[in-house]
C-alpha cells in the first residue's frame, strides 16, 4: 500500500500541495484528477523522493521514502509528465541506461528490456533513435522506462498529454494491462474521461487540496446526482410539473415549456419504471435523453467551475 499523509509543499507564497492524504491499495488504479496547477506533479515528485516535502509523510509498504530512499525507490516506477528520454539515443540505449540504474546486467537486463519493449509495442523500433519517433511512440517509451525494473508501484504523471486520441487509447490500454498483471498504479490526469475509464478510485485535487476521494459511484453520488433526464416535447412547464408531482424519485432541475431537466434520485424507482410514465402519450414528451452522472458534474459541484480551464 502507498500511503500519503498530510503531505505539504510550498514554493514561496504558493501552497502547491496543501496537506493531502490518500491511500492507494495494492492492485488498484488510483487516479489523481485535477486541473493544471492543482499540485499533481508536486505530489508525484514528493512520493518519488525527488522533492522533499515541507510536511507530512509518504509510506510505501510502510517505509518512509525520505528515510530509506534507495530501498523505497526500487519499489517505484516513475513516469514523469515530460518525455524524459534521450532523443539522440536509440530506444534500446535509453532502456539499457535505465535498467543499469536499477542494477540490471547482462542477460537479465536484456530480458527486462525486451519485455518492456514488448509491453509498449516498440520491439521493432528498438534500434531506432528516439528522435525519429512519433509523439505517441515517445510517450510509450517514456512509459516503458518506468516499467523496466518491474516496480510494485507505477506512478504515472499525465502520461497522455499532447498526443492524438488513438495514441492515448494505446497508452490507456497498456496501463490497464500493467495493472492487470498486479502492478499498483497511481495515475494523474486532467482528463475526466481517463479517470472515468481507467481508475478504480479517484481523488479530485484542486489548489493543492483533495476535495473528494472515492470510487466513481461514490464520487458521483457525492455530488448528489443520479442520472439526468433531458426531456423535450410539446408539453408545457405547468402540465409537466403537475405530472411530476405524482412521480417520486425525480427532481426537476429546470422546467420550461417544451424542455425539462430532471435528476433521478439514486434511491428512487429505476429507469425502467420511470421511462414509460414519462413517455406517456398524454404528457407530450417526445424524447428523453439520459445523461450518466459524470466526474465533470462532480467537479463543477465541488469547485463551481469546469475542469478544463
Amino acid at each position, binding site marked *: 500500500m502507498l500511503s500519503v499523509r498530510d503531505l505539504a509543499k510550498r514554493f514561496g507564497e504558493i501552497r502547491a500541495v496543501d496537506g493531502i492524504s490518500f491511500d492507494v491499495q495494492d492492485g488498484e488504479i488510483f487516479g489523481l484528477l485535477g486541473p493544471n496547477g492543482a499540485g499533481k506533479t508536486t505530489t508525484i515528485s514528493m512520493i518519488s523522493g525527488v522533492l522533499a516535502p515541507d510536511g507530512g509523510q509518504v509510506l510505501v509498504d510502510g517505509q518512509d521514502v525520505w528515510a530509506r530512499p534507495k530501498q523505497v525507490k526500487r519499489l517505484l516506477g516513475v513516469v514523469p509528465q515530460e518525455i524524459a528520454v*534521450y532523443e539522440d539515443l536509440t530506444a534500446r540505449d535509453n532502456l539499457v*541506461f535505465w535498467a543499469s540504474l*536499477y542494477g540490471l546486467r547482462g542477460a537479465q537486463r536484456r530480458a527486462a528490456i525486451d519485455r518492456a519493449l514488448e509491453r509498449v509495442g516498440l520491439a521493432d523500433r528498438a534500434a531506432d533513435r528516439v528522435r525519429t519517433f512519433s509523439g505517441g511512440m515517445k510517450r510509450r517509451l517514456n512509459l516503458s522506462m518506468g516499467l523496466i525494473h518491474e516496480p510494485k508501484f507505477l506512478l504515472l504523471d499525465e502520461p497522455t498529454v499532447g498526443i492524438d486520441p488513438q495514441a492515448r487509447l494505446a497508452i490507456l490500454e497498456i496501463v490497464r494491462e500493467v495493472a492487470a498483471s498486479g502492478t499498483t498504479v497511481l495515475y494523474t490526469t486532467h482528463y475526466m474521461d481517463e479517470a472515468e475509464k481507467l481508475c478504480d478510485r479517484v481523488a479530485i485535487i484542486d489548489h493543492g487540496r483533495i476535495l473528494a476521494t472515492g470510487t466513481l459511484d461514490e464520487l458521483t453520488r457525492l455530488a448528489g446526482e443520479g442520472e439526468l433526464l433531458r426531456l423535450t416535447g410539446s408539453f408545457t412547464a405547468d402540465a409537466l410539473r403537475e405530472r411530476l408531482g405524482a412521480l417520486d424519485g425525480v427532481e426537476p432541475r429546470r422546467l420550461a415549456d417544451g424542455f425539462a431537466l430532471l435528476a433521478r434520485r439514486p434511491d428512487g424507482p429505476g429507469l425502467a419504471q420511470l421511462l414509460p410514465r414519462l413517455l406517456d402519450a398524454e404528457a407530450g414528451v417526445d424524447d428523453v435523453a439520459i445523461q450518466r452522472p459524470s466526474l465533470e458534474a462532480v467537479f463543477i459541484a465541488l469547485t463551481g467551475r469546469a475542469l478544463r480551464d
Partner: protein
Amino acid sequence: MAATLAIVRRDLVRWARNPGRLVLLLGMPLALAAIFALAFGTGGEAGLTVRVLVIDEDGTALSEFLSGALGSQEDTGPLDVEIVGEEGRAMIERGEASALVIIPEGFTDAFLDGRPATLRLIKNPAEQFLPQAVEEALRAAAVVLSQASRTFRDELAEFSAMLAADHSPDPVAIGAMSTRIAAKLQTVEPYLFPPVIELETISADGGDESDDGPSMQAVLSLVLPGLAVLSLLFFAQAATRDVMEEREHGLLRRLLSAPVGTGEYLLAKCVSVVTVSALGFALLIGIGRLAGVAWGPPVAVIGLVLSASIAASGLLLLLVSLVSSEMAANALTTIVVMVSAMVGGSFVPLPALPDFLLPVARLTVNYWATSGFLVLIRDGGGPADVVPQIGVLAGGGLAMLAVGAFRLARRIRAGDV
C-alpha cells in the same frame, strides 16, 4: 557507484552517437589553425614570401614540365618559384631566396631509365629550412589550406544550420561564434604575424633537416596548443550543457526518482565532463601529432591534458551552477570561454600577448595550459618544467569542480529539479 558508472557510460554513448558534434568540436580548432596557417600564407602580401629558385640544367620536356609545374601555378600563395640561370647560385649565396632547386643534366634520362634521378637542393645558409621541405609544406599549405579556408567560410553557415536541426540552440551559437572568430582572426592577423616570423628562428635552433616540413609544423606548433585549449573549453561546455538540458527536460527528476543519490549523480557528471573534455583534447593533440607537432615528453603532455581538462570542466561546471536556465548557461559560458580565449593566448600566441593583459591572462585556463605546452614545444622543457602549470590547473580545476558540484547539490536538495 554503479549508478555513477551507468550515467558516465550513458554520457559517453551519447557522444559516440553524435559524431556530428564531435566533428564540429574537433574541426573548429583545426579549421581555425588552417586560417592561421593561411595568415602565414597570405603573408605574401605583407612581404613574407618563400622564394625558391630553379635552375634547369637538363632542359628536356620532363624537366620543363617539372619546373613549369613548380613555377606556373596560378595561386601558389607564399611560394614564389622562379626559373633562373647560373646566376641563381650567386643569388642563393647572397640570401636572396630560401632555396635553390637544381634539376641536373641527365635528370630526365635517369628518370626514364629507372636510375636514381636526383634533384639538387641548395638552401639559403641564413635560413635553416630545407628547401624541399619548405616547398612541400608550403605547397601543401597553399593548396590544401587555401582550399580549406575557401570552403570553411561557406561551411560555417551550413554548420550552424545542420546543428540547428540536430540539437538545442547551442550549436547554432557555436556556429555563429566560429563565424565571429573567423572575423576576429582576420582583424588580429597583423598581430599574429610577428610571432609567425619569429618562428623561423625557433625552428632554426632545431636545425631539423629531415624530410618533415618544418614550417608547417612550426605554424601548427605555435597555434595549435592555444586552439586546442579553446576546443577543450568547448568540449567542456558541450558536456556541461547536458547538465542543464537534463534538468530542463525532466531527465534529472526522473533520474533522482531512481535509486540514484544526488552525490552519485553529480560525481558522474564531473567524471563525464572531465572524461569527455580529456578525450576531445587528447584527440586534438593526437591529430596535431600526426600533422607533425612535437608536443613533448608523453608524461608531461598527459599531465597537462588531464589537469587542463579538470580545469576546463571545473570552470564550466562552476559557471553552470551560477545560473538557472539552459539559455542563461549558454550565454554565460560562451562569453567566458570567448573572453578567456582572447586574453588567455588562444588567439594571440602568448609571446605576443601585451604585458598589461598578463594579470588577466593568468586567471584563465587557456593561459596556464597554453603556456605549459609552450614550455614543452618551444623551450624543449620536460615534465618538471610544467609542474607549476599542472599544479595551477589541477588545483584550481578541482576547487572549481567542487564548488560547482556543491552549488548544484544544494540546488537539487532545495527542490530546484
